[in-house]
């Protein structure tokens, strides 16, 4: 019970590491920094495991376990404590965050070996761990928002880690600003929640919401607005349409950062929030539909862009966006557990993909363009195999983790009252695209002849410190899905049952209307279709990349217009720049700065000063040095005052 009583220890550990690294040990040797950073992170992971043990031993009556440590904000009847909460959902998130985070820390020691800002890097990383844990452990929306903003800050710092590169700092700013938009929605949601439920504690808001009547379909009620505002925040953080534009640019940061923040943990915060407040969404059909549609469209959209990207990390970035789309699709379909499940597995294999890609980049000496690679299979076998496993997982090959999670999502979508066949169809088509662009990446990178100059680039396998995490993550990518194997695969869906208490009412509402046996057959057919599509994607990729690569260019020439559209990422950035950024900058520059600040405010201030000096200059003439004129002034005052008195007396 120790950790349950002292929950604060878990976030405090990374914070301690960050403080030590950031304040005292900046100039220390790598060994010291490693000890602190890895030690604190490992301890956090260990304590998370211990917490899991204690939590499992906990009686179901006392779940969720809420512990309030000190009053934080008391304003009138508003009250927000520094309170931490543990339930099954939190447990999963904590384990994923600490575990993957620990592995990526290990990896970073190798990857950042020769970087100048070694201590700074680990300081930021630990700080991110702290905020992420605060986010997932928070017992009320306010504290959650602190973590929310904190991870945003760390993302900004780490994206712009190489702040001498203009592109890096720009990417950091972009991420920050785009997130601001979403945060605004989140704030609105919090305000509305407080206004409607008088509190922001999960343990008070969610039951109240559960007991409240749901909005009727097609009707914009309280829950709809709150849910949509929350969804805006989630879109910002989890890079969904229309706020996804920051994530590809965020690849400017170091690769471990991309793996940890922009694949495994932070970007899934949106999904976490949606799942956390699923009751509110369930009470609003419109919101569910919106979530589903947004997720589905984002998945397809990002996947299409990923088809033609040549930067290895960009491909992975768009793939991340698309996978996040899957998660939201699951949420929209009411299968929150499936969404969380995919979140976990995706954390495994996408982190693995990024790390492997980092390993490749490391091997290529910083080269990121896939067209300049090729034939690396023999040179960096560990990287190759681990990356292949991750690719199989994300492509949804049976037996791998991605297969189970994606399968669960698609079937849930097909069966859900909110989703429907159309969404399922799009999602299924996206499976094909996913398989295609992932295998395209593999083929371009590891197969074919070497496109680079051996004399310049000395390809070499990464050090142990980078390979060990790869291997561990590979194992996880394989077995990560087994404990959620649906019944028809002779498995028992532990994961679903484990999360059942959290999403109890979700299950009730999202239960497929069709009988179970029927559902099984439908599920088998769906899985079959998905697998066929995946293999199809694999073969197209093989055909275009290995069999005859010429065809690629000819296709590009024949369908030049759509090709350029995809290469230009649908020109969304340019659209935003023209529609939002430039007017904003113009108005800030000419209206706010020149007109209001300089004209109005400075004008007023200077005008007052000028008026004063002018008045003084005029009044100065009164100083005639003539005593009797002074006396006359006194008399004037006396007359005024006396007449006032007389007037008062008469009146």
């Amino acid at each position, binding site marked *: 019970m120790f950790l349950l009583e002292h929950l604060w220890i878990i976030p405090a550990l990374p914070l301690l590491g960050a403080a030590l690294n950031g304040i005292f040990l900046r100039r220390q040797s790598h060994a010291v920094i490693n000890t602190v950073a890895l030690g604190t992170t490992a301890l956090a992971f260990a304590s998370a495991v211990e917490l899991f043990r204690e939590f499992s031993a906990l009686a179901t009556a006392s779940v969720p376990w809420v512990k309030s440590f000190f009053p934080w904000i008391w304003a009138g009847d508003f009250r927000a404590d520094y309170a931490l909460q543990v339930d099954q959902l939190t447990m999963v998130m904590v384990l994923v965050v600490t575990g993957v985070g620990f592995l990526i820390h290990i990896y970073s020691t190798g990857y950042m070996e020769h970087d100048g800002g070694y201590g700074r890097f680990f300081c930021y990383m630990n700080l991110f761990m702290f905020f992420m844990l605060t986010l997932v452990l928070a017992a009320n929306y306010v504290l959650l928002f602190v973590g929310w903003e904190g991870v945003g800050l760390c993302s900004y710092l780490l994206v712009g880690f190489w702040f001498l590169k203009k592109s890096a700092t720009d990417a950091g700013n972009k991420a920050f600003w785009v997130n601001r938009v979403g945060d605004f929605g989140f704030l609105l949601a919090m305000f509305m929640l407080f206004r409607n439920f008088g509190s922001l504690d999960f343990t008070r808001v969610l039951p109240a919401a559960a007991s409240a009547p749901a909005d009727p379909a097609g009707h914009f009620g309280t829950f709809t607005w709150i849910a949509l505002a929350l969804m805006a925040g989630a879109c910002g953080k989890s890079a969904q349409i229309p706020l996804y534009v920051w994530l590809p640019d965020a690849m400017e940061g170091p690769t471990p950062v991309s793996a940890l923040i922009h694949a495994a943990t932070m970007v899934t915060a949106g999904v976490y929030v949606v799942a956390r407040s699923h009751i509110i969404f369930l009470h609003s059909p419109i919101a569910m539909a919106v979530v589903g549609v947004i997720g589905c469209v984002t998945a397809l959209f990002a996947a299409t862009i990923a088809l033609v990207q040549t930067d290895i990390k960009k491909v992975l970035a768009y793939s991340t966006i698309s996978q996040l789309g899957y998660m939201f699709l699951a949420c929209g379909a009411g299968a929150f557990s499936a969404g969380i499940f995919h979140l976990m597995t995706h954390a495994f294999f996408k982190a693995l993909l990024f790390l492997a890609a980092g390993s490749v980049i490391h091997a290529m000496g910083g080269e990121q363009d896939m067209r300049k690679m090729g034939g690396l299979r023999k040179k960096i076998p560990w990287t190759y195999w681990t990356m292949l496993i991750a690719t199989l997982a994300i492509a949804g090959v049976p037996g791998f983790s991605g297969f189970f999670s994606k399968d669960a999502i698609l079937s849930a979508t097909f069966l859900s009252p909110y989703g429907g066949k159309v969404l399922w169809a799009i999602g299924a088509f996206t499976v094909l695209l996913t398989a295609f662009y992932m295998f395209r990446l593999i083929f371009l990178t590891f197969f074919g002849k070497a496109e680079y100059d051996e004399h310049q680039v000395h390809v070499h396998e990464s050090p142990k410190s980078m390979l060990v995490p790869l291997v561990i993550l590979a194992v996880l990518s394989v077995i990560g899905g087994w404990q959620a194997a649906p019944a028809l695969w002779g498995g028992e869906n532990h994961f679903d049952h484990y999360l059942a208490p959290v999403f109890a009412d979700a299950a009730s509402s999202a239960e497929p209307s069709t009988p179970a046996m029927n559902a099984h057959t439908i599920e088998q057919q769906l899985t079959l279709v998905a697998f066929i599509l995946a293999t199809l994607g694999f073969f197209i990729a093989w055909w275009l990349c290995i069999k005859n690569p010429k065809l690629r260019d000819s296709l590009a020439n024949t369908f030049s217009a759509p090709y350029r559209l995809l290469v230009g990422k649908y020109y969304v950035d340019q659209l935003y720049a023209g529609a939002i950024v430039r007017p904003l900058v113009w108005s800030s520059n000419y209206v706010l700065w020149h007109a209001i600040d300089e004209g109005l405010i400075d004008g007023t201030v200077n005008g007052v000063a000028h008026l004063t000096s002018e008045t003084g200059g005029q009044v100065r003439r009164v*100083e*005639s040095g*003539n005593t*009797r004129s002074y006396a006359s002034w006194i008399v004037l005052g006396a007359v005024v005052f006396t007449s006032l008195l007389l007037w008062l007396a008469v009146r």
Partner: protein
Amino acid sequence: MVPISYFIVLSAVLFGLGVIGFLFRRNIITMFMSIELMLNAVNLAFVAFSRAFSQLQGQIFVFFVIVVAAAEAAVGLAIVILIARNRQTLNVERVNLLKL
């Protein structure tokens, strides 16, 4: 019999005369005496009111006013002597260093 308001009117008139004297004399000492005249007018009003309301505070106040006037005369005349010695004149029109 004499209404006490007559005394008030008289004091008002005397006060006004004092003001006029202060405004129209150039000799510091004369201006000073005009001030004394104003003080006396005020004292008269005080005593008249104290009689009208048959309260002695008015006379007490007059007493204090006289004391203050004495102190003021002492210091003021010392200043007048200084001015006369430094500027060789008693004409305020010539004592106008404090000006634009």
